[in-house]
């Protein structure tokens, strides 16, 4: 309730005292909402992803050098998602995220055809991860590949 200081008017006394009533109901609902917040905040935090496991993985051993002949591919775990390692028919090593940019399916290398294929909606990517045909909206994310002793290491660029 606002008062005009220049011409102060005493508010009319009302037997039901609506100001007090509305103050009480506002106070009770505010406290009630705060209470619900206190109860549901831990529940919400509890239900959220507990630990971002593997999201921060920077590099991983994708395969042994001997494992991968020319014109073949291998899917490996990179953090919490699959990635694909490909040795092209020419013997070059390439690595991409194996998660199709369309709807999260896992792609595969098709030997002899020089492309990466997604079985869900026939999306095709070339050996640089670019979309050749089908619904994928973006190219596959490419990773750095290098050899270290017996191992092939893949890391985020």
């Amino acid at each position: 309730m606002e008062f005009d200081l220049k011409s102060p008017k005493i508010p009319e006394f009302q037997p039901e005292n609506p100001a007090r009533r509305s103050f009480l109901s506002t106070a009770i609902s505010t406290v009630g909402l705060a209470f619900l917040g206190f109860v549901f905040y831990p529940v919400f935090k509890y239900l959220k992803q507990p630990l971002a496991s593997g999201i921060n993985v920077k590099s991983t051993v994708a395969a042994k050098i001997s494992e991968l002949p020319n014109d073949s591919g291998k899917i490996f775990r990179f953090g919490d998602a699959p990635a694909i390692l490909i040795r092209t028919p020419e013997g070059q090593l390439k690595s991409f995220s194996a998660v199709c940019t369309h709807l999260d399916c896992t792609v595969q290398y098709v030997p002899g055809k020089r492309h990466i294929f997604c079985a869900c909606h026939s999306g095709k990517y070339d050996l640089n991860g670019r979309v050749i045909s089908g619904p994928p909206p973006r190219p596959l994310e490419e990773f750095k590949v290098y050899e270290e002793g017996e191992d092939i290491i893949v890391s985020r660029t």
Partner: protein
Amino acid sequence: MAIKEFLTSRLPIKETLDILKRKEVPVHRFSPFYYLGGICLYLLMVQVVTGVLLLIYYSPSETEAYQSVKYIMTKVSFGWLIRSIHAWSANILMVALFLHLFSTFLLKAYRPPREFTWMTGILMFLTCLGLGFTGYLLPWNQLAYFATKVGTEIVAAVPFMGEVLKEFLRGGTNVTGVTLTRFFALHIWILPMMLAAIAGLHLILVQKHGMSRPLLEASKPKKSMPFFPHFLLRDLNVWLLVLAVLTILSFYFPTHLGEPADPLSPTPIGIKPEWYFLFTFQLLKLFPAHILGFEGEHIGIIGLGIVGVLVFLVPFLDKKSAKDERSPIFTFVGWFFIASIVGLTIWGVLD
């Protein structure tokens, strides 16, 4: 207002409120005991909510159970709080059940027409003991493992079918991962469903018959208050208080996890059952190894079973209070039970 009309003309809101408004709660010096049933109901709801939350991360297998509980306690946000509230709420629920049971007994609220209210109450009490026993095993730690070994071994003393019953509970001759999964099924589905059904009947009966006015108050002028909203608001206040107590206890005394169960280690020294089983445990210890050629433990189990059946049938045995007369014998029996249970429990704790 339009929404209110839309709903009330389609849902039985008015009818339900009318029933609740008609219900009167007697006001007298023992009235605070009427809160106990509501407290039990509230704690059961807390158990359902926290139990379902724990279920989201718990893994019921011999190899993973302990690790998954450890994960809840250390990695999941507020996991320690949810688990501690579940454990504390279980313990306070047992206290509230004991108090509810004994106040009902001493005030003779089981008198006609409330016999079935009493009997459903006893069945719920036993179901809650079962929930406590089965839930205790689920973290698969040393204490849980050995407490379950001993607890299921006591079942073997039931005459004639003890061994069969024991192997049925354990799912084999020993406590193994098979025991864990069947205790899990009992704890999260079978017993809760039984409890929900019996509690539903119990609550319908309480609605139908209303709260019992104690015999001690029969001669005094009858005062009462409406259940809705007067008593319900008081109930809600008590529930808030209980939640505060639960949270404080869980914060300052969170539940431990202990060491993972190792069937090839010796039983830890000083192992004891949970406090609500302690009086039974101490009582069975009192029996000598042999009584008149029978095994003492068998006699003890049979005795406990007979007492249980008598308690279940008390409304039909207490003929005096059924006629609304004082029945001092049953009052004495009630106090005798309380004294024995408290005494045996204290002895068990100190033992």
